[in-house]
């Protein structure tokens, strides 16, 4: 999953730096993720993982770092399994 997120981030994040120089815990907003790009990234994740972000997870914290995105996506996929 980490690799998929990184690939999407490279494609949609519009970042001024290469994605492989970013650590999992680095603040994505500080490396240049704009709010427009973060929405594009969300759409990419929804398409790739065939899911939808619920409104309560559409906040800065969920997208603050690569590992935060991973946790967010994982929790949505797990909730779906339980449901």
């Amino acid at each position: 999953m980490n690799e998929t997120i990184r690939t999407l981030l490279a494609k949609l994040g519009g970042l001024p730096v290469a994605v492989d120089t970013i650590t999992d815990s680095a603040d994505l907003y500080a490396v240049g993720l704009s709010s427009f790009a973060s929405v594009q990234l969300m759409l990419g994740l929804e398409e790739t993982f065939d899911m939808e972000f619920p409104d309560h997870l559409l906040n800065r914290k969920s997208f603050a770092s690569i590992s935060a995105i991973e946790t967010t996506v994982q929790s949505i996929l797990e909730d779906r399994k339980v449901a």
Partner: protein
Amino acid sequence: MDLSTKVADQSLKARATRVAAIAAAYADEVDKAGRFPAEAIDALKSERLMGIQIPVDCGGEGRSTSEIAELCTIIAQACAASAMIFAMHQIKVSSLVSHGVDAGWHRTFMQKICNEQLLLGSATTEGGIGGNLRNSICAIEVDGDRCRLEKDATVISYGKHADAILITSRSHKDAPPTDQVMTAFLKDQYTLEQTHVWDTLGMRGTCSDGFLFKGEAPAEQILPKPFAEIAAQSMLASSHLLWSALWYGIAVDAFTKAQTFVRAAARKAPGTTPPGLVQLAEMSSQLQVIRSNIKAGLGNYEQALSDPDRLSSMGFAVAMNNVKIASSEMILPVIHQALRICGIMGYKNGTPFSLGRHLRDAHSAELMISNDRILGNTSTMLLVHKQETGLLG
């Protein structure tokens, strides 16, 4: 009865009403000359209203955003420029209150604001960036325990009259445009070289000239949170809500003038329906929508204050943007209708029904962070955020 011992009413409303009376006396003169409303701002200071939002343990009164919004509405009915200065000052204070209470320097600064009734200015707009406050070109330079900043600030309201300026920049010279910080500079820590003159249609008394800002200060004056968080959690919401509250005040005053005009006509010809009466009913309905929208927004903000996740959520940002869009657009037809009702007495300056200032001041609302820009941001979020479909949520 000995009036000299009578204690003045110290409720917030009474304090603001006394400020409004002074603001009203000078409003036309301030507008005409495009000068700073010194009398109204002195009155705000002598009523000790500058620090009211600051927590009690930092010397303030811990007043809520709703209470401050109410004061904006009261003062705007007298002089919108004075109300805008008060609103912008309180928006800056809200950033300190939300993000500076754990920082030593900023706590002391808040004490100082209360003790000395300081007026805070804001510099987010930058040459080359316009109204996009979430981007900066200029960067703060930190050198040991000092920081330095130079900014082409194309609009700083009451820049010459502020006692301190809160200013945004990139966090260091290699940072991307979105990686921003906000720094508080005191008057004796910066110079302002004027680059633009504020000769505008309305809001003339805000004296929002352009300046080249050059400042140097201890680095601890940089707010200890990324500006992205400050913007999302205090600035955007308090700007949209306090601005809307004062814009509502402009429209309400226009309505009051129209109502007075219609009532006078009705008294002169009892038994007949004066012209303008039906339009008045329509305006009343529009005002109620604007007022309800702002009140709901204030309620939403105050509930979200205890929940940082909700404060930085898209749903919340969409809601606050919508309050701004609706109030800035809906006040214009109300004022326009009032002008039609009052006729030439409203069109002429210097009558009890003059509406020129209202009309011109209100036209700043759609431009102040351009509605097109805000709609652009909201529309991006609507790609993933779902519209509320229920009535009670």
